């Protein structure tokens, strides 16, 4: 696809956002107003800006990533605007900031390429783990953690001299940093890790000391589970580890070991923690726990059910009734107002994005870039799977944002960083 077609699609995605806003205003009885134009300008300007960066610094990059990212962001934005116009105003800023961060990533790597990240991998690991632990800082400090909905994954910073408070989720950025570390670690160790030393039945077992990383992954995931009570992040982190080990070695053994460890961990967690127990019960029998733990799941199911094939129409449903409708449960709100058709459009968008991401990985020539592209794609795919599974009641609900669609600046910044890295890798593959 040419750059021209890419700009065309970016403008089209901006139109999707602007049209959605226009429809929401129309259902309130207002004709075209400034919000529509503003939305169009923000979308076209932000993603168009990233495209200019791509043309300037990574001219060989895939032209498919940006249109998909802007499309998903646009659908999410429309639903956020419909539910809470004030949040949407903040989200517009987040989109601009996230695109700036994406541009910044492209600019920083313009001469060195992603290879430079290998050199700083331990720095990235420490920063990543530090970010993960940041929410545990005591409440009395200037930079402190905060517990929201029972999970401790927010960090609040009081801006000096004022009463303003900035809050963000460092875990979102941490997952990207840790993926970069894993890619560079595995690029060096994968060969040794895939050597088979013995066989037990049909399973080929690599040398035991290479199992270290799997246990570290399980341990890290468990620490997050215990101290931050964040099921989603814990599952996501563990999933990324196992999937990347599999990408790097091609040994199903790692997947089996991962599944066994995860099941054991999940069972132990179920026995030990009542917040896990409540989630599982709400999953198995949400209607029986309608008044407490199952309420969100049930409201999500009612919303999606009432949406039917084409939905109630944007602005005509009742997504307000779903708790966390702009963040974790945005998919339910979309399915209610845009129906199965709109929900499938979102899923198609994710599928295409993942297909392009893996395409970049397959075509990259060296291991590091291959694992990095594959790993970053898995971050998005897995995160979407975990939260969509929760909303659709295929999995217990574990709070995670839906990439690109959910309200939230940290999440958007992390996702645009991923897109920028994928763009960079796809550029280097063609050099």
């Amino acid at each position, binding site marked *: *696809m040419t750059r021209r077609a890419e700009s065309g699609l970016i403008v089209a995605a901006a139109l999707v956002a602007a049209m959605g806003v226009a429809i929401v205003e129309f259902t309130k009885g207002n004709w075209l107003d400034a919000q529509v134009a503003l939305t169009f300008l923000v979308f076209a300007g932000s993603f168009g800006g990233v495209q200019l960066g791509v043309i300037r610094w990574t001219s060989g990059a895939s032209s498919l990533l940006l249109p998909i990212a802007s499309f998903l962001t646009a659908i999410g934005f429309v639903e956020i605007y419909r539910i809470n116009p004030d949040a949407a105003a903040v989200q517009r800023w987040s989109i601009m900031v996230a695109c700036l961060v994406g541009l910044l990533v492209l600019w920083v790597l313009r001469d060195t390429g992603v290879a430079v990240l290998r050199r700083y991998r331990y720095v990235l690991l420490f920063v990543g783990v530090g970010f993960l632990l940041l929410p545990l800082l005591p409440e009395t400090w200037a930079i402190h953690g905060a517990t929201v909905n029972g999970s401790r994954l927010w960090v609040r910073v009081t801006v000096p001299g004022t009463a303003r408070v900035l809050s963000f989720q460092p875990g979102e950025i941490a997952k990207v940093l840790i993926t970069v570390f894993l890619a560079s670690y595995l690029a060096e160790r994968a060969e040794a890790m895939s050597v088979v030393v013995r066989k037990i039945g049909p399973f080929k077992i690599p040398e035991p000391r290479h199992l270290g990383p799997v246990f570290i992954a399980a341990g890290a995931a468990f620490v997050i589970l215990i101290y931050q009570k964040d099921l989603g992040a814990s599952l996501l982190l563990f999933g990324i580890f196992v999937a990347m080990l599999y990408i790097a070695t091609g040994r199903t053994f790692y997947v089996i070991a991962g599944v066994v460890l995860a099941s054991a961990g999940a069972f132990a967690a179920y026995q030990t923690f009542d917040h896990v127990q409540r989630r599982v019960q709400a999953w198995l029998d949400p209607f029986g726990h309608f008044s407490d733990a199952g309420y969100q799941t049930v409201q999500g199911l009612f919303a999606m059910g009432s949406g039917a094939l084409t939905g109630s129409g944007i602005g005509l449903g009742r997504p307000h009734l779903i708790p966390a409708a702009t963040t974790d449960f945005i998919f339910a709100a979309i399915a209610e107002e845009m129906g199965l*058709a709109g929900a499938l459009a979102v899923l*198609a968008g994710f599928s295409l994005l993942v297909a392009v991401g893996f395409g970049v990985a397959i075509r990259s020539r060296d291991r590091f870039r291959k694992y990095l592209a594959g790993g970053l794609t898995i971050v998005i795919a897995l995160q979407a799977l975990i939260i969509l599974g929760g909303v659709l009641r295929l999995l217990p609900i574990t709070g995670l944002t839906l990439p690109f669609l959910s309200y939230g600046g940290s999440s958007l910044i992390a996702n645009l960083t991923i897109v920028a890295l994928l763009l960079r890798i796809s550029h280097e593959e063609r050099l």
Partner: protein
Amino acid sequence: MPALFFNIIKLLYLLMLFLFLWQLARAIRSHVGSNPGAQTEGTAAELVVLTGDSETERVRIRPQGHVIGRSPDADIRISDPYSSEFHTRVGIQDGQVVVHDLGSTNGTYVNGRRVTSPTSVSRGDTVQIGKTILEIR
């Protein structure tokens, strides 16, 4: 008729979403497929399909490589039942022709030996994919 009107708007909006996705999917198809304009000089090695059901093909190996497989979107399509959709990638790295198995089910064999990591080959070597034999010339 406000209800009908809203319904039409709703359907038009959904149509817009799917038009967008359709355009994207078309672009992805051509992205996965071959890219004939990108031939450049360099190593003049050629890849020749010797046996198999596909009509005998002969292509000059281009720097960004060719994906060989059963999929209609592969750069070099072979209609071999033992081949995976995207089976092997043959490309040029540091001036050498490199064969890279893309995680195929039945494996890629260079001169009869199965290869799992990127392997450099030279002229006269054969690459076997399923029942199809290709030669580097």
